[in-house]
């Protein structure tokens, strides 16, 4: 294969964005602009599907590797995928077109700029998931913040500036330390090539500090407790499409980073810090679930539930068990679909009533039945009902954790009870009950594009709930190899 498929995946959205940049946004050509963006992202999606088909699932080697010299003897532009990264690329290319379709209801001004931000962000995200050089990874990882910052800051709600800065400062603060760590690694090993670092390992003397530096960045982005408070604010102020991108893709970068770098590069340190991760994750699951219970703003509720769900993810990753890590990846994919859908569901009623407060609603089931059915489905997926993708992830994670630590598994399982309570209570207050607010009577049920988007998210949510094999199959070899490597390095103490 000489065709640089990964670079194409990274570049294509940017090229689309470039086109948009040179098109002036007026009322008349808004449709054209949207179609250009949509077309680009759909081509990218098809390309990533093609990548998935070509992908050889039987090996854990990196595939489709491309390497170009960037700065002589220092940085190489190197990309490649294994079973772990490919699913995240697919998630990114799948969510982006849906986001683009969703904009006609929510974005009223500067449409072409918005779409440019979305497409650029897609480029960066794909870059994050396939870069095999730490510096390249860092660049993509940080660059991804900028479009998000703009999306919140320009198209956000009333307190958008506060939220945008909170988001930016929080995430940047962690990342500075990661940059220092990357430079240190270069001085220690003379390379930032991930594959070579995997082979040579990193001196155990430095691992703890390096691990902590990476952790500070990933923990903020996950977000883990107690550095999660930027997320509810960011979500509340972000426009619907922004929330979707944030929840579905941006949060997954850190989970991916934990697997790829924390486990891959610093096994000895990961072993030492596992209790820390467990503690923070369990606190995140329990605390944020209780907080979610009391939210009055729908978006905040879902944002807090995201923190809890990501708590399961970090928990599963550090079990270093096949079930745990596989569960985490499935949980991330599932959360990508479900949280995206839930934010879209909030967006649907927000576009109609301009309120995100739960008590505005109630009794809308007979007015907008299609919406209610789909919202119910995603509610159930969020609370991890068997038959939805949410269950497979959560159950596998908890199984993995149980093997490692009883107490953690018991406490984490308690989150499942609270999860059911806050999701069902949210649904009940919004959809069921007597119709008191008579303004709601004018609500129109899902239009064609909304129905299409939500169905696109519903189908994989159900499909992977009943048949998660395509996902597990893809990651299985890579993960078992990762675990073997981890244990091997741990035994040899590198």
């Amino acid at each position, binding site marked *: 294969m000489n065709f640089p498929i990964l670079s194409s995946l990274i570049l294509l959205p940017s090229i689309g964005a470039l086109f948009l940049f040179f098109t002036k946004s007026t009322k008349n050509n808004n449709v054209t602009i949207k179609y250009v963006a949509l077309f680009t992202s759909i081509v990218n999606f098809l390309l990533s599907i093609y990548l998935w088909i070509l992908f050889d699932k039987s090996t854990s080697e990196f595939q489709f590797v491309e390497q170009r010299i960037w700065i002589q003897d220092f940085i190489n532009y190197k990309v490649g995928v294994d079973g772990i990264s490919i699913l995240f690329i697919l998630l990114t290319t799948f969510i982006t077109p849906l986001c683009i379709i969703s904009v006609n209801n929510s974005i009223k001004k500067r449409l072409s700029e918005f779409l440019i931000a979305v497409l650029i962000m897609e480029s960066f995200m794909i870059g994050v998931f396939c870069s095999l050089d730490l510096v390249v990874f860092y660049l993509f990882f940080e660059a991804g913040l900028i479009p998000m910052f703009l999306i919140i800051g320009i198209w956000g709600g009333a307190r958008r500036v506060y939220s945008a800065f*909170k988001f930016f*400062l*929080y995430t940047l603060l962690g990342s500075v330390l990661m940059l220092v760590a990357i430079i240190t690694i270069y001085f220690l090993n003379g390379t930032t090539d991930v594959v070579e670092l995997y082979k040579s390992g990193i001196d155990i003397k430095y691992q703890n500090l390096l691990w902590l530096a990476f952790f500070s960045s990933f923990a903020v982005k996950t977000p883990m407790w*107690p*550095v999660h*408070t*930027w997320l509810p604010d960011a979500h509340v102020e972000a426009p619907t499409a922004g929330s979707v991108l944030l929840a579905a893709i941006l949060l997954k970068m850190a989970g991916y980073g934990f697997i790829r770098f924390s486990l891959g590069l610093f096994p000895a340190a990961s072993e030492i810090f596992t209790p820390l991760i467990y503690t923070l994750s369990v606190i995140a699951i329990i*605390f944020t679930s*209780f*907080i*979610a*219970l*009391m*939210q009055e703003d729908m978006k905040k509720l879902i944002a807090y539930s995201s923190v809890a769900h990501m708590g399961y993810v970090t928990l599963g990753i550090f079990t270093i*068990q*096949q*079930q745990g890590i*596989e*569960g985490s990846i499935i949980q991330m994919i599932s959360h990508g679909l479900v949280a995206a859908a839930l934010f879209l569901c909030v967006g649907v009623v927000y576009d109609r009533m301009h309120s995100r407060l739960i008590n505005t609603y109630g*009794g809308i*089931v007979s007015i907008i039945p299609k919406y209610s059915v789909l919202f119910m489905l995603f509610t*159930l997926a969020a609370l991890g*009902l*068997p*038959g939805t993708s949410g*269950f*497979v992830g959560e*159950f*596998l994670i*908890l*199984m993995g954790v*149980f*093997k490692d630590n*009883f*107490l953690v*598994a*018991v406490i984490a*399982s*308690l989150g*499942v*009870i*609270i999860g*059911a*309570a806050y999701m*069902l*209570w949210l649904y*009940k207050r919004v*959809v*069921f*009950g*007597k119709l008191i607010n008579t303004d709601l009577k004018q609500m129109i049920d899902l239009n064609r594009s909304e129905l299409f988007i939500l169905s696109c998210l519903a189908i994989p949510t159900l499909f992977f709930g*009943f*048949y*998660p*094999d395509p996902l*597990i199959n893809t990651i*299985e070899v890579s993960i*078992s190899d990762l675990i073997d490597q981890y244990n091997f390095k741990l035994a040899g103490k590198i």
Partner: protein
Amino acid sequence: MEISIIALPLIASIISGFFGKFIGDRNSEIITSLLVSISAIFSILVLYEVIANQYEENLLIAKWISSGSLEVNWSMKIDSLSAVMLVVVTSVSALVHIYSIGYMSHDPHKPRFMAYLSLFTFAMLMLVTSDNFIQLFFGWEGVGLCSYFLIGFWFKKDSANKAAIKAFVVNRVGDFGFALGIFLIFYLFGTVNYSEVFQQISTITDKNLTFLGIEINAIDLICLLLFVGAMGKSAQILLHTWLPDAMEGPTPVSALIHAATMVTAGVFLVVRCSPIYEYSEFALNIITTVGMSTAFFAATVALVQNDIKKIIAYSTCSQLGYMFFAAGVGAYNVAMFHLFTHAFFKALLFLGSGSVIHAFKDEQNINNMGGVWKKLPYTYAMMIIGTLALTGFPFLSGFYSKDAIIEFAYLRGNTTGYYAAGIGIFTAFLTSIYSWRLIFKTFHGSYNNKIVKIDETHESPIVMLVPLALLSIGAIFAGLFFKELFIGSVGSANFWGDSIFFLKPLSADHPPLWFLLLTPILVILSIPLAYYLFVKNRNLPEQIADINKPLYQFLINKWYFDELYDVLFVKSSKKFGLFLWKFFDLKIIDGFGPDGISSLIKKFSVKANKFQSGYIYQYAFVMLIGFSALLTFLIVK
């Protein structure tokens, strides 16, 4: 054919749920009823095969989850245990489907209702035919979900929505234990398939685990965790609070889900896991204790309730308690027998009460009924049959199953056994009293309804009466016909085969004759007693209540469980959530984190601003100070 038993209800549900609008109300009713009935007929054929030819099969439908050593398949396991459950589930479900055509005739959302019923049937069938714990869990949560939908079916009623959420969340508490049990099984055996787990169980009898410093036997722990799940689903004491509230749903739902099928899933679980439970004397004693406590507790509460459905709901709770204590004394087959007979007479009672409610135009308080037995002759007759069967009147189905439970408890020969037998007899007496109270207050005495005139009450349509008639046949004969097969000393071992495991065979002795006669006599004597109390001398019960005011209050408030839980869990959770949010997140994390730092930086920059005042003499002064400090430093060094 086997797979179509499961598939047909699912298809019915999809058709009615998604296309109900297009095919019309009547068509969706017919299609769902028909498909579920076919499924019922197939189930009966399968049971026949099992009885006649010891038919056993484990069909593989598809792969589900495989991760590392975990292999889970969608599968269908047919043995005597699942065949019995198949028949119970599909036949009651089919009758309830048909009955609902009449009962829900005025409801605007018929297709949705039928779709939920069929979906429930599907989930329940997945539960009983699973060959592994995870598919069981799928069905387990699936029936919980359908129960949630159906309890909250009248979505405009706030109480219905609350009851639905309560049912789901309380069940989740049970499922929490259940899931941990599954994790533990996977941890110990590396598999979740019944057959593989059951094979290995005898190899770990001495294994101990330490949790939070407490050392506990591994098998005991598995059994207890699984039983927590069973307690949730089968509404056993402590986790029972959702069941009476679940009566907010339409009555056919109560008959199908909250009497005959879903709530018995817990009993099914314990029986299915008999190869594990047999190795845990400790867990079995706990089950017996919980079962008999529930039986007694629920019966006392049922004595004073006034809502016709709540009485029957508590009665169900109580009967489930009987099933558990049968399982707890090791008589799993007797538990299954009672489950089987109970499905008929309890569904009959619920559907009958539905017919009464229908006649009184949605009145549920028995104090507002009375004197209508002539107006509702068929309903009355069939309710009588149901009551006789429930109370264990000789030669009706309840007589065989319930008395067998009490006998086996006695024959267990240990303290728990005798204790359970004693409570069992007393509870049987209470059961009889509250059941006849219901009948007498509903059908006899004076007519007490002020809204509906007596002439307006009417017998239900034929489509509702036929299912009642069929169920009453079951309520009369199920015990007599299946006694030998289920619990007979010769036939039963043959029939159950490997599906139920006995470490040591059940005692084949007989208790003394006086013991055998005790329960039936009490049950028969209670009829005139109830008649006297609730028809002849109606003031007497009120006087008794007045004298024992605290006791009466305690009972009518259902032992104050709801109030206690509200304070303990609901209110405190909300307070805790509010505290974490408003104080922890906003004040502490944000206050000392981003907001604090940014305001700190602001303060500093304001200070720094002041430095740049623009006055030359100030700058010169600062320079001078700096210069002298530097000089001093150099000299000292």
